[in-house]
C-alpha cells in the first residue's frame, strides 16, 4: 500500500490491520508483512492510503 503526505499519524490503520504490518511514527509505514489486502484504506480518516507500492 502507498501512504501519501496527507497521513497525520493517527494509527487507525495500524490498529485495524489484521497482519500487524503498519508502524506509525508521525506517519504510517508499511512493512513487508503487508499482504496488500487494502483493509486500511477504509479506516484512514484522511484518505492517505491507496493501492500500490
Amino acid at each position, binding site marked *: 500500500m502507498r501512504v501519501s503526505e496527507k497521513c*497525520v499519524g493517527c494509527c487507525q490503520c495500524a490498529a485495524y490491520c489484521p497482519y500487524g504490518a503498519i508502524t506509525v511514527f508521525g*506517519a504510517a509505514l508499511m512493512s513487508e508483512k503487508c499482504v496488500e489486502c487494502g483493509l486500511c484504506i*477504509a479506516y484512514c480518516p484522511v484518505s492517505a492510503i491507496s493501492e500500490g507500492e
Partner: protein
Amino acid sequence: MKVAIIGAGLGGLLAGAKLSKAGYEVEVFERLPFIGGRFANLEYKGFKLSTGALHMMPHGSRGPLAQLLREVGAHVTIIDSNPMAVIRKENGESIEFNDFRKELPVTKRVKLGTILAYSLKFKPKGDIPFRDWILKYFDDEFLLRLADSFCGWSLSLSAKDTPAHEVLEIIDNMYRYKGPGIPVGGCGAVTGSLADIISSNGGRIHTKVCVDKIIVDGDRAKGISANGKTIDADLVISDIGHTETSRMYECRDKTYSGKLEKIRSSGGIKICLSCDEPLIGHSGVLFTPYAERINGINEVTNADPALAPPGKHLVMSHQAVLSDDLRSEIALGLSDLKKLFPDKKYEILFIQSYSNGWPVNRASSGGDIGNTTPVRNLYIVGDGAKGKGGIEVEGVALGVRNVMKEIGVG
C-alpha cells in the same frame, strides 16, 4: 421533521440522540466503517485505546457532556477523578492542583487571588493571549509553565496561542462543573450508548457512506446527496466543521467565508503506554509543566481496569505540537517520558499524532465561530463549533446545546 446528520462523531451522535428523542426522524451518515469519530475506542493488543480524545471528560459527572448524556438517557458511568489533578514540580515532587497557589510567595498569592476574582467578573476584552495576560501582572516561571501545561493538555495550544478570555471562561466552568472524570468503558462507551439511543428511537446510522453534497435552495437546505443518492431533509446538521461543510454547497456569504479563512485547527501528540506497575497511581491528570513537550498524562486504568488486559495499566500522555517537525516533537515527548519515569518499565503501544484534516480541534479553542451558517437550517456541531469555555468534548456538548436552543428542542 426529518434531519440528516453528516458525521457520526460525538457532536453528530449527541445531536442525533437529542433530536430522535424529540421525535425527529434522524439519519446519520458516516464515511468511516465505525462510529464515534475521534471519540471511539481503538482495540489494540487487548487494550482499549482511543481514536482521538483521551478517555476522559474534562468536567466529569457534573459537566455539560454528562448532563446531556443524562438528558437523552445514555447509560454511561462516569468516575470522577480523585485527586482531580496533580502537578509535578521541577524537583520531581507532586502537589495537588488546587494547592498551586502555595508555590507562590505570599504577596504574589494575594495578588493572584484579587486579579483572578476581578478578571473572572470582567473578562479581558479583545484577543490578548493568556501568556501576555499573565505577564501583565506576574513575572513568574512556575505560573507561565503551568499555563502552558494546562492549555496544552486541555486545548492543544500553548498559552501564547490561547486567548485569555477563553481560559477565564474555562476557569469559570471549572468552578461551576468541577474536575475531570473517566467514562467506564472509555470514549467508545459514550458514543456507543448514543448510537443505541438513536436506533431505539427509530433513527438510522449508516457507516461507509460519504456525503458529497448539501442541496441548498436559496437560504435553506433541502437535503443531502450521499453516495450519489439524494436524501431529503428539513434540517441538516454537520459534524465535520465549518470549512469542510462549506465545500459541500455554494457559499455566497462573503462575511462568513472571511470568518472561515481565520479558523485554525490545533494539533497534538498522544503517546499510549502499557505497564505492569502504575506510573501515576491515581485517576486524575498529572500536569508536567517542567517537561519539555509533554503537558499532562493520565492513567485511566486506576478508574476502569477493563481498559487494559488483566494486570496491565494504560497510560496516555498528551502534548501540543509546537513546531513543524513532527518527528522531533515526538522524540522530545518520548525523552520527557524517560525523564519523568526514570526507574519505571513501560512499553510504547502507539504514538498517535493529530493535525490538518484530522486534528485535535477543527477550530482551536477561542477561535470558534458559532454553530450557525448562512444556510438557515444548516448547523455545525462538533469540535469545529464548540461553546464558550468548553474544553474539548465539554465544548462539543455546549455547542450541541446551542444548536438545540436555536432549533427549539429543549
